[in-house]
Each structure stands twice: as C-alpha cells, then as structure tokens.
C-alpha cells in the first residue's frame, strides 16, 4: 500500500490521461521516485481506474521481487531515474503524437503555447520497442536534455518533479500535435508569427 495522497495523485492523473484519450485502457505507465525506491504502476492495471493495490514499490538500484509485478517498462524508468533528475515519469500513447513521429525525427510546434513550453520534441527510434535496454539507453539519454521525448511509433516519455508536471507535458504535447495535424489537413500556408522560430530545431 502506498501513501494515500500519492495514490490520489496517481488515480486522478491516470483517470485524466485515459479520459482525454492519451492512452488506451491498459496502456502506458507512471512512476515516482521516493527515497531510494521507485513506485510504479503494476503490469496489467487499468490507467483510468487505478486502485491502491495497483502499485509496486521496487528498489531504485539492483533487483528485487518488485520486478515480477511491475510494469514492463520498469527498466526504462530505472534508467531515467539514474540518468536524470526526474522525480516522476509518465509514459503514454498520445495518438496524434505517435502519428507524427512516424514521419519525422523531431516535432516542432507551430502553436504559441507549444513554442513557449517546448520549441522541439525529439523522436528516438529503437528496434525492440518495449522494455529493452536499448530503449532505456536511448530514452534516458534524450531526457537529459528535454522534458518530453517521443519514441517512434510507440509513445512519449515525460518527466517532472511531480506527476502533475509530467502530465502537463504529455497533455500539452498532444495539443501541439493535434494543431500540426489539423494545419496540415487544412493545407493553407502558415503565416509565421514567431521571431527566431527557424532556430527551434537547434533547441
């Protein structure tokens, strides 16, 4: 059993992520770092209906029995906590972001909010797309320089000091991507309104 306030945070954010279509019923995962432990959603739990028993506490470094029930992506979460100052991680499957990741190496926002928050979201690509050391390496390395990254065809990894912060990046990313998609469907030439936006790819 985990701390009640922490559970409520997981539960509320999980519900919001599911209900806003950022992941399917059982997809994605979330974790926080507490002391020298990681608390992560267990494998097979429903994102939108998390119960207090749906969490696993496992050691930050080294293996323990927690790994048996923890999410498949635990290895990625561990690598991120080792390599960055993240205190919370959210992995989700935002559809439009995934769609865009299929055809570009970086997502550059065209909307104002996205420009303020991100400037650029890199896309990493690995052969074994779920729970591999290769993925853990690539994602954790990328998150040293960015607060949210996309894994081509799979989904996003966002970090923050709190779950709420990580959630904000996930939600904002999908807004960025929806706007890019809709602009491209509209097919009209964009009137550039931002100074220095040509430098965003240098971010």
């Amino acid at each position, binding site marked *: 059993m985990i701390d009640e*306030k922490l559970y409520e945070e997981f539960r509320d954010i999980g519900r919001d992520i599911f209900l806003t279509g950022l992941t399917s019923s059982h997809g994605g995962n979330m974790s*926080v*770092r*507490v*002391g020298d432990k990681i608390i992560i959603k267990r494998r097979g739990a429903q994102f939108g209906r998390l119960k207090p028993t749906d969490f696993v506490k496992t050691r930050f470094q080294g293996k323990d029995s927690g790994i048996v029930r923890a999410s498949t992506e635990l290895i990625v979460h561990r690598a991120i906590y080792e390599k960055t*100052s993240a205190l919370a991680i959210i992995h989700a499957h935002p559809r439009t972001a995934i769609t865009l990741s299929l055809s570009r190496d970086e997502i550059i926002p065209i909307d104002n909010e996205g420009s303020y928050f991100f400037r650029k979201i890199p896309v990493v690509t690995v052969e074994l797309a779920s729970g591999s050391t290769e993925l853990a390496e690539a994602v954790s390395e990328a998150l040293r320089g960015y607060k949210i990254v996309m894994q081509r065809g799979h989904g996003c990894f966002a970090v923050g*000091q709190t779950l709420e912060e990580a959630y904000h990046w996930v939600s904002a990313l999908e807004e960025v991507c929806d706007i890019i998609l809709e602009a491209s469907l509209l097919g009209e030439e964009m009137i550039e309104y931002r100074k*220095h936006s040509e430098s965003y790819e*240098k971010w």
Partner: protein
Amino acid sequence: MAGWNGKILTIDLTNQTHEICPLDMEIARQFIGGRGLGVRLLWDLVGPDVEPLSPENALIFTTGPITGSGSQTSNRFNVSSKSPLTGTILHANSGGWWGMQFKRTGYDALIVRGKAKAPVIIEITAQGVEIKDADQLWGTGVFETTQALGQDRNNRNVLCIGPAGENLVRIASIMNDKERALARGGPGAVMGSKMLKAIVVEGDQKNKPADQDLFKFMLYETGKLLKASPLTSQALPEFGTAVVMNVINEIGALPTRNFQQSQFDQAEKISGEEITDTILVKNQACWACPISCTRITKTKSDKQGEGPEYESAWAFGAQCGIDDLDTITEANFLCNDMGLDTISMGNTIGCAMELTEKGLMEAELDFGQADKLLDLIHDTAHRRGIGAEMAEGSYRMAEKFGAPELSMSVKKLEMPAYDPRGMQGQGLVFATGNRGACHEEGNMLGPEVLALPRLIDRFATQGKAGIVSVHQDSAAVIDSLIYCKFANLAVAEEFFARALSAVTGEHFTADDLMMVGERIWTLERLFNIREGFTKADDTLPDRMLSEPVPDGPSEGCTVKLAPMLEEYYAFRGWDENGVPRSEKLKELSLEFAIEAEDD
C-alpha cells in the same frame, strides 16, 4: 577558449606577491565556476587544521563562464572560504557590477591567502595587480570607502569590508558596489583577518560567446519568457522580494519574536506593498538584468539607499516584534555601511530580546523596541557592550548565557524568514544545508507556498526528500554558472544549459548541469565531514522539533525531521549516517575525496 578566461590569480598578502596559474579545464567542466569552482579550489587549500580567522584560511572569489556574457542576470559572483561563524564551507554570492568587472580583468578566480602586516587594498586593472597601503581607510564605513576608491558603476568597481569585518565580527559581510552583499557565514571577518580592506577591479576583456547565433537565439527566448512570467515582469519589479511577507504570514510560517510564534499581526506594515506605498523611490536593476527587483528607498529622515529585502524586513521586523518600517529600513542601510549580514544581525537581536525577556541576560532590551536597533548594530560592528556578545553570533551568545537552545540556528548559522513548522520541506532544507540554516540552498518557498512549479502539501513529509535534493542541486549549479535564482523563476535549467553551450561552444544538457550540481553539493558535504560534522549536526533547534506552533494555520505543528532525513540520505545515496557512499563518489568523479571518508 570561450566563457572561461582560463586563468587563476593567487595573491599572498604575507609576502605581498602574486602569481597567475592556468585554470584546469577538466575541473572547469566538472565544477563549471562560481560556487563549484570555489569549493573545488578550497578543498585542496584549506583542511581541518586551518582556523577560519588565521592567515592560512583562503578567501576565493570566483565567476562562471556565463558571467559578463550579457546573458540575462550574468552579473553575479561568488566567494568561498571556511566560515568563522559555523566552521563549515562558506559560499556566498552577490549581484551588482563587481563580478562582471572582475571577469573583465581576465581571471576566473582570485585566491587571497596570508595576512598583510598593515591594512591594504588590492587593485586589479588592465595594467596589472597592485597591493596598496590602506591605513587611512581602516575604520571607515563601506559607503565612504566605496566612494573614496573611485566606484564608477560600469567601469571601476569596489568590493570592501566595513568596521564589522575589521573587528572580526563573526556575522560580518563583504559588500560590493556599495550596497550589494556577500553576507552569510561571516566572509567579512575572514577578509578583515587578512587586513584586506578592499579589492578594486577595472578590466577591459570581453566575454564573447563562441556560438553567436545560438547565443542570440537564447537571449531572445530567455527574454521572452522573463517577460511572460508575471513574477519576473510585474511582481518583482513592482513590489520587490518583500511582497512575499504577507503570504508567508497568511499561511502561518512567518517566524515572530525569535520563532516563538508563526504569525506577526503587523506583517502588513513591513510588507512589499507597504514599501511600495510609503518609502519606495524607484526600482533598480543589476548589470544585464531585465527583472529590476532592487528597491531604492528613502526614509523620513531623508536617508536613501537600497532595500529592505524580504529577509532584512523580517529580521528587524517580525523577528524582533517591530513594525516601524522606517527604522527597519535605516537598520538595513546601517548594516550595509558597517558590513553586516542583515539576517544574522536581526535574528541575533531577536535572540537577545528573548534571553532578556527570560531573565537570562541583563540588557535594556525588549521585543518591539525599534529605537534600540541602530545602536545595537553600531555596537555589534564595534564589539561594544552587548554588541560584543552579538558579534559572536546568536549561538555563542545564547550558549554563554546558559540557553543555546534559544538560538534559532543550524550549525550556528541563523535561520532565515521561514518557520519550518509551517513548511516541512523547508525544515529539511535548513537541517541539511551545507552552510547551515539557509534558504538559498534549495528554497522550498516555490513548491510549498507559491505553487512554483506546482503546489505540494507543505504539511506532508513523504516525498519531500526528492524535491529538496533536486532543488539543492539546481541551486548549486545556478550559483556556479552563475545566474540569479530569480531568472530560474521564469526559465528552467534547460535554458541555462543551452546558453552555456552557446557561450562556451561546448555541449551541455540540463542534466549535465544537474549532475554538476549534485557533484558540488556532495563535495561541500565531504568538506564538512572532513571538518568533523556528522549526522547529529543535521538537525533543527529544539523549538522547531518539539514546541508546537501556538496558533494560526500551522497550529500544533512541529517539524517531523527524522523520517524526512532518513528518506533524504537514502535518496542521495548516502549511508544511514549521512556519509556519501563510495559508489556515489565514483559516479560523481569525486574519487579524490575518498580518502576523507577513510580518515
């Protein structure tokens, strides 16, 4: 080479010689500059056998690769030493113009060692380095000294001590550009013990960024976000730092009358709003800063100067039960002229008031007596009467009168303007601070009160360890680049990393910087361990741990330090005694310090 100057100037005041050495670039990349470079250099020079006020102590002034580049807030500089107040690592940083000018003289660091036979000043110009007699200035206040030595804002800048530093007052500050301060831990006393009155700098070398395009882009983006944040674009320039007085009081975390209460019913009278309404003349900015938070104020008796900041208004205000803003402001001006840390001074006066109230000390001193403030400050600077006790800091004073528990301090550094019983995370910050009870080493004001970046429960204890650690590491690297922490209110470390990359031409990520921060924090910890500090020193005054807040929104609270401390050591990869494990030291490339563990 860009960003760093690549040179260290060492001056030996005993032999009146100086030498110039190259900056080790490996160390530069690992510790960046400022506070980080300061502790790394100090580690080799000052061991446990060195008395802080002896000639063997080193006074190390450092800038960072960002300093003088023109990046927003790139004006700050740092001083490192061993503290005569606490015996821990001493690091303090200040704004204004001196740091930018020192960078222009072509050095990254100035190491001052030894002791002059008679008062001297150091002058560093494009012509070279000179040590000059300063007999006629000894005994003079900071304001007069600054003017006498030719202070000229953008061109020639003066750093000096006042009578407090000369008299080895343990809470003495070093002042620069007249009213900017390197304050906590008594650096002024170290400088005074070397008979060094002032350091004047006048340079001509520019810090030209390596990647001009990227630098221009970062300047634009950072400026954009500083303008977009209502804190940096409206609140700070309009109301100054003391705007936070009312909100801290509202939630019941404003220490009052030596931390006996956590609300001050006259908080309104000493708030940022009151300053703006009654005594503000205008605001002012340090070099290359668009935020402009400094208060220029004028009192009823026509005295004009800088301040008071939140901490100073609290220290002479709520801490002493005083609501007379005019006198509080003049107390602030006087501390600047004498060269005294306003936080330690006000906190110590409040302590003296309680000692008197409880009949432990004989003095004509009560809470609320604003008319006593100025004399007490004069007396402290000159070690006269009761000032001679205060000059030793609140802990030594309270201990002498039989009640050390009435000193609101940690590791003998006076606590600043936050009652940790109303902010659990802040309690952990004060208890584990490397320089003692300090809010600048990872302030939890943002997360626990201002919802920055997000609001967390100020009464909760679980999970605080992680957020505190991240904030401590972040503060350490910001103090090394060097940026002003107020820039951090609008832009995150990812901006600093990219600006650093643009200035130096080398690639840094946000987490490269966070690792530097962790490295600096850990080396400071090891320095203190080498000095003999242990887990027992990671604590808070008894009042914070076992006297519940009497009333207000934080009523009934004490600081639940033990569980937070346990989680903190575990989070940081330290053992149960708070000693960094060797795996952690290897991870941070601090193997050279491992011998300290074994000693």
